[in-house]
């Protein structure tokens, strides 16, 4: 280019762009995946404590999981996992050409949201020791 042009602005104000529900579900798929990745050390550590022999392990495990903050993190991770799981199934189905139409994609996105939240509730209560 011969002429110097001013750098052009780009309109990309994400909060102003309206996405379909499937779009948000998709973003959450990435967010939940990233969250799970970041929290992997915690999860592996907890696995180690839960499976380790001896009193110290058992004691530490109950102290750590007894902490309300940890409980909340675990609850969040549980949801993240379940959302990622449900959304993953949806993606796999789309990959084999099931539910690729606009309306179906919307319905399945709603289903993912509802089912993952419902499952979080079911297993969350278990996690919190309600039953």
């Amino acid at each position, binding site marked *: 280019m011969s002429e110097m042009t001013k750098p052009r602005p780009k309109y990309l104000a994400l909060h102003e762009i309206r996405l379909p529900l499937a779009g948000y579900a998709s973003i959450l798929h*990435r967010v939940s*995946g*990233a969250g*799970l*990745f970041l929290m*992997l*050390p915690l999860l*592996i550590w907890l*696995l*180690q404590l*839960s*499976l*380790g*022999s001896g009193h110290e392990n*058992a004691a530490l495990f109950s102290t750590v999981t007894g902490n309300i903050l940890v409980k909340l993190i675990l609850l969040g991770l549980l949801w993240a*996992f379940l959302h990622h*799981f449900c959304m*993953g*199934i949806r*993606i*796999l189905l789309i*990959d084999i050409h099931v539910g690729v139409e606009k309306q179906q994609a919307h319905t399945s996105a709603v289903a993912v949201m509802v089912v993952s939240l419902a499952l979080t509730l079911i*297993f969350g209560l*278990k996690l919190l020791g309600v039953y």
Partner: protein
Amino acid sequence: MKRLVVGAHYGLMDWLAQRITAIIMAAYTVIMFAATLGGVTGSREVWHAFMANGFIRFITFLFIISLCYHAWVGVRDIWMDYVKPATIRVTLHVLTLLALVGYAGWAVQIIWRLP
């Protein structure tokens, strides 16, 4: 001159790998959630015995490997989308890879050490 690096041919392979590992993990998830509802986390002893079972140990191993590969593709995709400077991106790729290999080793030896 900015050079665009495209033309690599691992797109399909990674994509497939991500799907296959996803299927393995999904199956494992169903088994584990069913087991949880069945009460294997009821007490420490039951939990230990359950996890020490040969079959469970094997699928757990499979799960860990799948998880790490799956996470590798996923996290790499994230870096590819949001991190533009090539040097930082490659560094992040390497760190991710190291972390995941480390996690896999750690998790596998937890399973292995079970009596």
